[in-house]
Each structure stands twice: as C-alpha cells, then as structure tokens.
C-alpha cells in the first residue's frame, strides 16, 4: 500500500524531469519560427478560407501574380512587386493586362505553373458554388485567357485606377492539375484542403487540428530558398495562452502584444518587441438614428453633442493607459499607412470645459444625480463592447469614467461578435466600440460612410452617418482620373467626416509584435505583416538585446 501510493509521485517526478530540454524554439538545429495565435485555421484552400490564420498559412503556400509594394500604393501598377508573374504588359487601351509567369515557377509536386492555372483560379474565385470572399473584388474583370502557356491575360469591363490591384493581387493561384477534377461544390471537403500543394516558398508538412500547422522551406522555390527552415503556427486557443507560450519559450513570435506584455518583454532575456504599422482603426461609433428607426437618436442625432462627447475624451490618456504612449491616435476611419493619410488633418481637442459648455448650450442641464437631462431624457446611452477583446473592455471602462465628468452616463454592454454585428445591422444600439480593418484601397471609405450605404442597410454605415457634402467630395475622389487629384479630394472628405464626429476616433491598432531576440523580421506590411515571411531570418547567436521597442526594418 505504501509503495503503491508512492508510484504516482515517482511517475510525476519523472515526467517533470523529462521536460526542460528542447524548450527553446530557436536552439533546435533547423531554424524554426513558431507563431503562436489564438485561432486554428479553417481551410487552407485560399478561396475558402475566412480567418487570419488560414490567410497566413495560405500566403506562404500559394502565390499571387504580383504583390502590393511596401509603399502600399494601390492605384496603377506603381510600386507593385513581381511574384508568380515576373513581368506584365498593359494593352494600349488599358483594357487588358498580360501577366508573364516566371517559367521557373513550379508546384511542389514538380509540375510547372502554367497560364491555365491562372485561368482556373479565376474561374474558381468567381464561382457561385465556391463563394470566395475575393469574388466580389474580381467583378471588374470580364474574363481571363491564356495566350500561351506562361502568359495569362486579364480583360476588363472598364478602366479604373484599381484594375491592376484587383487582377494581380486579390487571388492566389491554385494548381489546376490537382483540383480541376473536383466539382466546385465539393471543394470544401476535398482532401487537398488539408494537404495543400502550392507554388510558394514553403511546403506543407502537417496540420494537427487545434494544435499546430507546420510548413518547411522549399529549396527549389523559383525565387530562391526562404531563409527560415520551418514555420509552425502553434494554436493556443486564447490570447492569454498564446502569451504564456511566448514567455515560456514554446513559441518565438506573436503578432500583437498588450501594454503589460510589452513591459514584460523588456525584462525577458530572450524576447524583443517590434512595432509595425497597422490597418486597423478603433473607434466608438455613434448611432445617429434612434433604435427601431424612429427619427434621429435622442442624444447622438445632434452633431454638437457628438462633438462635445468627443471633446470629453482624453484620448491620449485612455490610449496610453491601455497601450503605451507611442500608440498612434486615429484621426478618422483610415490609418497612417494609407497614401491618402495626412498628419495635418484637423482633429477635435480634449477640452472638458468646452464640452460641458456645448452640452449646456444644447439644453442638456446637469441633474442632481450627476447626469445631464434634456426635457426629461437623461444623457445616458449604452456602448456595445465585444466581450472577447480585453483591450476594448479596458478602454470602455476608462471612457465611462471620462463621460461621467461631463455628466454623461455610459453603460457597458459586453456582447460577442455575432450579436454585436447583428444588433448593429438592426440599428439596435446607441454606440458601439468598433475595430475596423481598413482596405488598402482608400475608396473603401465610400462604402462605409456614404448616404447611399446608410440607406442600403446591411453591415455598412450602421450608424446612419449622412452628409451630402461628404458624398459629393468622396464621389469625386473615387472617380478622379489622376492619383494626385484623388489624394487631395480624399483629404477634403476626411476633414468633413472628422468635423461631423460620427464616431470618437480612438487609436490605430496595437501592433507591437513579440519575438525572440534572434528573429530578424523583414518589412512587416501594415495590411498583412506576414507578406514577406520568406525573407525573415533567424540568427545563429542571440542578437543584441533590445530593452525598448524596436522598429521593424524599413517602416516609418
């Protein structure tokens, strides 16, 4: 009995002793980048994937014809980099573009990449039965043909500033010889989805669902072997678990850190923090229509009240409490990575007294309970906050406190994403803490804020912002013939939008990545930091320890 009861203890001790070795990701002989993230991939076939993990894996397995350059220019073809196509030629009338594939490009099973693959991929992405998220972006393309085995020609309905972007960089090219016998409707269950074969810099190795996805360098890649030998996506289930994996050395890369984590990383001997630009803006969106469409919202229908509430928020303090002082404040529904961005755009200042004065002037009188009233209606509203976002929850608490000082009472409603989207689409909310990923194309702003978007219903402009002046300027910006005119018009539209305060613009996404000190990232692009994973490297010896936040190479 005595000895028997010791056995579990001995076993435990043995198990404990067995670990400890090979824990560090970077000391294993083949260089390995272990990316830890919360969610598992859904489908590795790019037209069917809808989450970011799949997008990252898909990006190293499959190639696009061309890549957006580091300047993030999206009009014309300036700055675009060759990828699967090593060059392209425009037709004299600009109604077609011929992409010339790299003749050395080949699928990982040895078959060369051909123009017919491009034709097939276009068909797949526009097929109704596949339902690719890219499909609608290809609407401007009339057809794709193969003029010879390595030349794919895209034919357009009309000229537009973004036609190259849509043709060259929206879809990834897939191996027709492996997929064309699978009917479109059963593509989702094809074995290929879980054992993909691409033409990219990395080859698929294994996918243990809920645990890890592994790829390894393809030494025969047509643009040269990638520097890191293996990449593993280590699925942690939650951001907290992911963070612990990074700290314990079970992973050596995590794409976003919270403020406290950044401080911790400063103290960690083997980790560094690297900042990179982002394409996400976070803001508190006001619903300008009352719930259930009964005229303007009692509080937010008034432009002056929206401006006053914006001025009541000390955005700098709120942002540096949750993140840190170097986090960029958002100016509007766009980020500093866009070519149309201008740091000199106007902004509403933090001025608690003037905010109170404006509210007073608009008839909101302070009541005994510390909340303003106007004609019996209290200055009270609720804010939808996604329960899965810790930072937004934290900031909501801070905002609540700031509004209290000007006599506005805000209730916080934690909801999950589906409920939040559903309620916003049904206009069943007062204000919502939104995070929006901005399109690399500045024209996306028209879909989100124009009067026609508000009238159309659906997921766009759920706050019912509507200003004819804005509509006119944005239309002329989108329709502009030269990039220069377009940029000037976009900036005018931004200024109008900011003045109307349809939302409190808070901050640009926190984008500080945590990684091993020996990981040397290439340029991390704002819209997809993983765009150049093939150029990353992992040094042999630990690089010089950086206590503070480093800047990713080549960013501003």
């Amino acid at each position, binding site marked *: 009995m005595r000895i028997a009861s010791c056995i579990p203890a001995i076993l435990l001790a043995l198990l404990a002793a067995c670990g400890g070795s090979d824990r560090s990701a970077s000391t294993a002989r083949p260089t390995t980048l272990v990316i830890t993230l919360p969610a598992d991939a859904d489908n590795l076939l790019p037209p069917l994937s809808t989450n970011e993990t799949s997008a990252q894996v898909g990006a190293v397995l499959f190639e696009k014809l061309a890549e957006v350059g580091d300047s993030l220019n999206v009009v014309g073809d300036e700055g675009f980099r060759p990828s699967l196509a090593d060059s392209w030629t425009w037709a004299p009338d600009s109604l077609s573009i011929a992409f010339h594939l790299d003749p050395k490009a080949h699928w990982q099973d040895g078959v060369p990449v051909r123009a017919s693959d491009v034709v097939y991929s276009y068909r797949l992405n526009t097929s109704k039965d596949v339902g690719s998220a890219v499909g609608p972006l290809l609407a401007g393309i009339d057809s794709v043909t193969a003029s010879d085995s390595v030349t794919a020609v895209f034919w357009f309905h009309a000229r537009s500033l973004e036609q190259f972007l849509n043709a060259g960089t929206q879809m990834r090219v897939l191996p027709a010889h492996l997929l064309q016998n699978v009917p479109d409707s059963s593509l989702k269950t094809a074995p290929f989805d879980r054992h993909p074969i691409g033409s990219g810099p990395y080859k698929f190795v294994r996918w243990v669902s809920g645990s890890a996805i592994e790829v390894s360098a393809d030494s025969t890649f047509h643009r040269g072997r990638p520097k890191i030998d293996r990449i593993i996506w280590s699925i942690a289930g939650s951001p907290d678990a992911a963070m612990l994996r990074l700290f314990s050395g079970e992973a050596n890369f995590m794409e976003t850190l919270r403020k406290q984590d950044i401080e911790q990383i400063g103290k960690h001997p083997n980790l560094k923090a690297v900042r990179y630009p982002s394409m996400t803006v976070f803001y508190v969106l006001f619903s300008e229509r009352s719930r259930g469409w009964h005229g303007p919202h009692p509080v937010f229908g008034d432009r002056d009240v929206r401006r006053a509430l914006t001025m009541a928020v000390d955005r700098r303090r709120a942002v540096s409490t949750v993140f840190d002082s170097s986090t960029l404040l958002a100016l509007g529904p766009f980020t500093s990575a866009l070519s149309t961005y201008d740091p000199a755009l106007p902004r509403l200042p933090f001025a608690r007294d003037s905010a109170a004065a404006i509210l007073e002037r608009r008839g909101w009188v302070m009541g005994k309970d510390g909340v303003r009233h106007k004609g019996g209606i209290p200055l009270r509203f609720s804010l939808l906050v996604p329960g899965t976002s*810790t930072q937004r*929850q934290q900031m909501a*608490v801070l905002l609540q*406190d700031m509004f209290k000082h000007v006599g506005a009472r805000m209730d916080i409603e*934690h909801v999950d994403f589906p409920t939040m989207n559903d309620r916003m689409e049904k206009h069943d909310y007062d204000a919502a803490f939104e995070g929006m990923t901005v399109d690399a194309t500045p024209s996306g702003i028209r879909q989100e804020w124009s009067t026609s978007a508000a009238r159309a219903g659906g997921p766009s402009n759920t706050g019912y912002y509507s200003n004819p002046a804005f509509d006119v300027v944005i239309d002329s910006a989108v329709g502009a013939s030269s990039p220069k005119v377009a940029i000037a018009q976009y900036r005018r539209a931004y200024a109008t939008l900011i003045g109307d305060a349809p939302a409190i613009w808070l901050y640009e996404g926190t984008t500080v990545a945590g990684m091993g000190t020996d990981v040397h990232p290439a340029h991390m692009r704002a819209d997809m930091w993983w765009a150049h994973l093939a150029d990353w490297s992992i040094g042999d010896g630990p690089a010089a320890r950086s206590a503070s936040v480093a800047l990713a190479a080549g960013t501003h």
Partner: protein
Amino acid sequence: MIALRWLCAAALIAALCTALWRFAHRSDRTSRTQTVLARYVTHPSAMIALVALIVLYVVSALSPWLATHDPIEILAQALVNHPPSRELLFGTDFAGRDVFSRVLYGTRISLTIALLATIVSVIMGTAYGATAGFVGGKLDTVMMRIVDAFLSIPRIVLLIAIGTLWAPLSITSLILILGLTAWFGTSRLVRAEVLSLKEREMVAAARALGARDLAIIRRYVLPNVLSPVIVAATLGVAGVIVNEAALSYLGIGIPDPTPSLGNIIHDGTPYIATAWWVALFPGIVLVVTALACNLAGDGLRDAMDPRQVDR
C-alpha cells in the same frame, strides 16, 4: 475610521453567533427547528461553516460601509496592477481599481445572485418534481426524460451557450438562468420523495376521505420533502456561486464595471504571471464560500436526518 467600522462589524458578527448559540441551547426543546439546530451546533465543522457564512453575509451586506475605496473608481494611472500594500490590501487591477473593495462588493453581488438563483431553482425543482411524482404515469415519464436530457448536458455548457448567445445578460436574467439550470437534481429528489410518500397510509387515507390533490400536497407532501430540499438548496448555493463565477470568468456573466467574484478573476487572468493578486484573492473568497456552503449542507443533512448516526 475604517478600522473602527470593521470592529463594529466584528461585534455584530459575534452578537449574531452568540444569539444563535443561545437559541440552539434553550432548554425547552419543543420545536423541530430547535432540535435540528441543537444537533447542528454539536457538529464542529458545520459550526465553523455557519460562522464563516455569517461573516461573509454580514461583511458583504455592509460592504459600502466597510470598503476602503470606491470599487469602480480608477485610482491613478500609476496604480495600475499595483501589488498589495498597507493602503491597498489586495493590490489594484489593470485599470487601477482597488481589488479589496471590488472583492467586498463582488462578494455581495455574487452571494445575492446565488441566493436568489437558488430560490428560483428550489421553487422550480419542487414544483416540477412534486407534479411529476404526484401525477405519475405518462406525464411523469415525459417530464423525467426532459430532466434526464438537461442533466446529460454539462450545466456549464448550457450556461456558456445561453450566456454567449444572449449576451449581455442583465442581472435579473442571469439570476433566472442560473436558477433555471440548477433545479434538475432537486426535482428528481422531490419526485422520489413524493413517490415514496404516496405509498404511505396517511396519504392513502386522506385520499380515501376525498381530500383534493392540492390539499394533499400541501398537507402531507411538502412538509416531508422540506428537509431534503433545504439540504439540497444549501449545497446548491455553492454550485450556483461557482457557476456564476465561471460565467463571469469567461466574460459572459456580469459586465464591467460592476464587480463580481468571477469577473475580478477574469480581469486578473491576462496578467496572472505578473499581477497574481487580482485573480488570487477573489478565488480564495469563492473557495471559502463554497466550502462553507458544502460543510453547512452536510451539517444540516446530518442534523435533519432522523436516522443519522454519528460518523
């Protein structure tokens, strides 16, 4: 000043305990309640549990008066995730709020919710179980299969699903949901008791004399199922308080800034490695509460069971 208030609270607790002791030890043991109480107080662990519960209830009821800070006030930016000190007994959380005061208020809210939810579940369980047992036949079978179905889904899965799908839950709906997912066990218990009572002579006699069903239930059935139900309810409080905490821990229970024991732990989880105090202290209060309820329930069971032998 605060120390003085705490002294007053301690005095109140002492007075309550003494009163209870006196009541249990009165010489004229006429009522059943007194017999049970007298037997209960001889149980040392149950007694400790009772005292712990009294302390918890008194302190949480007086929390606005005993708290050192406003539980939702953000103290200062420099006091974010501050470790425990003399001023801030349990430290501060990510937003710079005093964890001690939050735990005090949170205990109050968690206890209130648990109590109300248990009442809901006891009423529901008793009514359901009594109906099924008394009516019997096909209805009984159907009703019990439904209970089986609910019991075969882990309660936490049910709660997570409801909580996620209908987020955000108001406190009232939270109480209802916690109560309405906690009665299945009670209903089985009551049904079994009713079935055995139905066979006894007094019920048969009453029925023969033409008493109506409802009257029989009130006269004979309810008093007899009372003691197992009270025990189940006491144990149920522990279950409900833990489930409420689990929901709030997952971020789908009580929303910020209102503190509850679970959401304080939720606030502390991301920083568990550096600011362990945020998640530790509310957890300890939770364990103490649940432990006290469990011990008290055991004590009650022993005290109420006439067949009980000293074990």
